[in-house]
């Protein structure tokens, strides 16, 4: 049989190229109304009074009083109202929807809404800790006594997902049932949230995924908020309604990557980091939401790709009166890997050691303990991967040459990504279920996984066709519809192929055994590998079933006059277990790295008293074709026993190493230490004038 990694054409190419693919804004329903959102104009306070204009016939206001169930959006931490009942915690917080048939009229009505507030002083400092975690490893603090210490601080700022398609849903009623079609990653997150908000029975809510125009985490939990709002409106008005964000609205109010601050103190013994103390803070924004989970992924990654015997790690989620932050590809890991990679670099420099050798001396090996006393059970191929990247990029020579030249630099990052949910999340919270249905000569994949561009539709059909040894045309996989597919969990956390694909592969094997039967359905559920034992409270045990690994080398040139950064080329090596389709993986590799690089040097987002300053695609700068460079990528096979054909997670890994690698390359080019990203020309100028050598 053919190697499954050999690429095939993606199954959705034709529809997407020809413009036939239906994204949510492409749906039109006869008699459809539109919903505009009324928002707060202050960042903190209490609403005293709202005066709505007189509504023409056929126009409606929908607010917290219309929420028939619980006025809370069900996320991991339940603290976000569907509509505020009066308390304002961030600028542009949703207060109500105005719904009606004509956008012109809605626009006028929106301008006439008068709201008076009792304003309070908003908090923008990171002082209100709402989640605090602490764990240690080895002897913790006790191990650090009497050792030399090296301390540095690192900072990262916002990153916006900047999917090209904004957030949106269209929904319609059918008797007492509400159906929403949306641009979403997690059909069942939306469904469960809507059930709670409507207080409805399970069979009265139906969620269908439209073709998704990019998500990157941005459509993980946020759609649950607007899905609930729209569902409440539909159940009140009983008409089809469209709620699609304008770009500016999307940029101003949707979740972003958490800004972070990391304080590291390394305790040095025999030219090694013998102990590490980390104090980590992330800005959660106005709601906690997923922030605690983001923080825990960041903390678990505190040692980077290295083994450190003694740890004392703590972190906080701070609540501020700013837009709530949430999921973004990498989920806390990009922040931490930036900090830890730079820290290793800076400690090596302080100790006057070669930073690559210093890192390799600390590299985690198979059977080493992880930061949480889990075990890296599978072979760690990093030494070979580093060797490969050195050879392809000529890293050693360039690194040496650029020491003596100005404005040229090369940097290397080493990193991993824990695949799937942290800890026992899969077993305790998600409990993924899949179905495969055989009907005549067709096999139907019934799962809730969403193709948001990462190729799930192709790779899952290919996986099943490959196992059954049938033509891919005979395997059907439609966009998930919760009326037909079981809850296989959200499309997040680099879990889709490894976890859901693993269950689907088990089901496909059973289908194969019964292939002579005409019509039947196979149902399978996630089974946690025996060895996964994790205690969330103490941060002890195997936090992830498997790890994907990566190395990035980035070469840059900095303009001597303008300090603009030009990325010349990148070289990457990844261990993702086994590629289910090599071309799809290459697409994930390039795309993730582009986002990671841009996070490191290009993408600036900040707020001024709670207002996001980059409110459109003109001001928020993502790379164009001109900004990106050739990227060479190599894959190492290292099959994981529980992944289909050995596959591990892919989606997030490729984003993680970009920022530290580009930051290190710039650091070499300008001969000044870099402590924060993005490394903009403005920051470079500051460093050149006042930075540390």
């Amino acid at each position, binding site marked *: 049989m053919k190697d499954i990694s050999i*690429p095939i*054409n*993606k199954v*959705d*190419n*034709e*529809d*997407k*190229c*020809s*413009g*036939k*693919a*239906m*994204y949510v*804004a*492409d749906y*039109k329903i006869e008699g459809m109304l539109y919903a505009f959102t009324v928002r707060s104009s202050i960042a903190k306070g209490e609403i005293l009074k709202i005066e709505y204009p007189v509504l023409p016939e056929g126009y409606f206001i929908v607010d917290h009083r219309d929420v028939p169930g619980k006025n809370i959006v069900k996320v991991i931490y339940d603290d976000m109202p569907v509509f505020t009942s009066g308390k304002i915690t961030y600028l542009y917080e949703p207060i109500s929807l105005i719904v009606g048939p004509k956008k012109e009229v809605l626009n006028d009505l929106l301008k006439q809404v008068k709201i008076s507030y009792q304003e309070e002083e908003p908090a923008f400092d990171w002082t209100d800790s709402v989640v605090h975690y602490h764990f240690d490893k080895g002897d913790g603090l006790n191990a650090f006594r009497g050792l030399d210490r090296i301390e540095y601080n690192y900072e990262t700022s916002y990153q916006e*997902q*900047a*999917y*090209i*398609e*904004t957030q949106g849903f269209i929904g319609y009623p059918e008797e007492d049932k509400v159906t929403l079609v949306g641009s979403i990653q997690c059909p069942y997150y939306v469904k469960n949230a809507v059930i709670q908000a409507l207080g409805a029975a399970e069979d009265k809510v139906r969620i269908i995924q439209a*073709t*998704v*125009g*990019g*998500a*990157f985490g941005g459509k993980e939990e946020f759609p649950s908020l607007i899905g609930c709002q729209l569902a409440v409106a539909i159940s009140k008005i009983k008409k089809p309604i469209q709620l699609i964000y*304008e*770009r500016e609205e999307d940029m101003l109010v949707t979740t972003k990557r958490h800004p972070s601050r990391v304080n590291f103190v390394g305790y040095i013994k025999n030219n090694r980091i013998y102990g590490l103390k980390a104090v980590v803070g992330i800005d959660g924004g106005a709601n906690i939401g997923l922030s605690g989970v983001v923080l825990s992924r960041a903390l678990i990654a505190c040692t980077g790709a290295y083994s450190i015997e003694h740890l004392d790690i703590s972190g906080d989620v701070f609540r501020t009166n700013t837009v709530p932050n949430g999921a973004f590809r990498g989920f806390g890991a990009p922040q931490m890997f930036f900090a830890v990679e730079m820290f290793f670099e800076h400690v090596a420099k302080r100790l006057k050691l070669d930073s690559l050798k210093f890192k390799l001396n600390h590299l985690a090996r198979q059977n080493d303990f992880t930061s949480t006393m889990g075990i890296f059970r599978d072979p760690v191929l990093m030494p070979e991967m580093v060797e490969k990247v050195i050879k392809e990029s000529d890293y050693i020579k360039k690194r040496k040459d650029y020491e003596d030249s100005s404005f040229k630099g090369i940097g290397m990052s080493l990193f991993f990504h824990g695949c799937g949910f942290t800890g026992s999340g899969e077993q305790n919270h998600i409990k993924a279920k899949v179905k495969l249905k055989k009907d005549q000569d067709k096999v139907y994949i019934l799962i809730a996984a969403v193709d*948001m*561009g*990462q*190729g799930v539709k192709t790779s899952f059909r290919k996986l099943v066709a490959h196992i059954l040894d049938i033509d891919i045309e005979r395997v059907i996989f439609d966009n998930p519809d919760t009326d037909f597919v079981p809850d296989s969990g959200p499309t997040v956390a680099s879990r889709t192929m490894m976890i859901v694909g693993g269950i689907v592969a088990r089901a496909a094997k059973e289908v194969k055994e019964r292939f002579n039967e005409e019509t039947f359905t196979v149902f399978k559920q996630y089974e946690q590998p025996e060895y996964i034992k994790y205690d969330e409270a103490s941060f002890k045990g195997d936090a992830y079933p498997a790890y994907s690994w990566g190395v990035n080398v980035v070469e840059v040139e900095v303009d001597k006059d303008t300090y603009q950064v030009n990325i010349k080329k990148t070289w990457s090596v990844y261990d993702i277990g086994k590629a289910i389709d090599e*071309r*799809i993986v*290459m*697409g994930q590799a*390039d*795309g*993730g*790295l*582009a*986002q990671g690089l841009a996070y490191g040097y290009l993408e600036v987002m900040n707020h001024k008293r709670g207002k996001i300053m980059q409110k*459109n*695609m*003109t001001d928020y700068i*993502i*790379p*164009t*074709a*001109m900004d*990106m460079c*050739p*990227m060479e990528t190599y894959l190492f096979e290292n099959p994981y026993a529980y992944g289909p054909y050995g596959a591990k997670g892919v989606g997030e890994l490729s984003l993680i190493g970009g920022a530290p690698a580009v930051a290190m390359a710039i650091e070499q080019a300008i001969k000044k230490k870099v402590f924060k990203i993005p490394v903009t020309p403005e920051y470079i100028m500051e460093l050149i004038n006042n930075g540390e050598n």
Partner: protein
Amino acid sequence: MAKIKFKLNGELKEIDTDPSRRLLDVLRDDFNLTGPKEGCGEGECGACAVLMNQEIVNSCSVPLANVLDKEIVTIEGFSKTKRYEVIKDAFAKAGGVQCGFCTPGMIIATESLLNKNLNPTDFEIKIGLSGNLCRCTGYNLIIEAVKIASKTGEGLW
């Protein structure tokens, strides 16, 4: 209101409407041509790109008034051509399609470029695609697709 006559995907059309409507809205709302997408609404992302007199324009930044007597081709019209087949196959072969939201615009940009310059250099390709934002691919696979199309499309342009 004004009567605006123009050619749309090869057919003569005349509509009586507000000339201050955006071409994008007219295409999507009046002609149900939803291939052009609204990404940013301000001429930055190129998801709404169409051909106007064979050149790429952002339909979100073109008032209908300026379409008078012009020839507009959307992805729906272009997808009936041989050139489209070549470009589409090249995108498939290179892996240039991910979420697909930018793809119709990218294909229009490719056509507009190859129509002027069948053998573009890497740099010329980058310039040709520079007004089309893609958040999924990092562009290399799309650049590769344009190269493949330029090679396999000989005689068509």
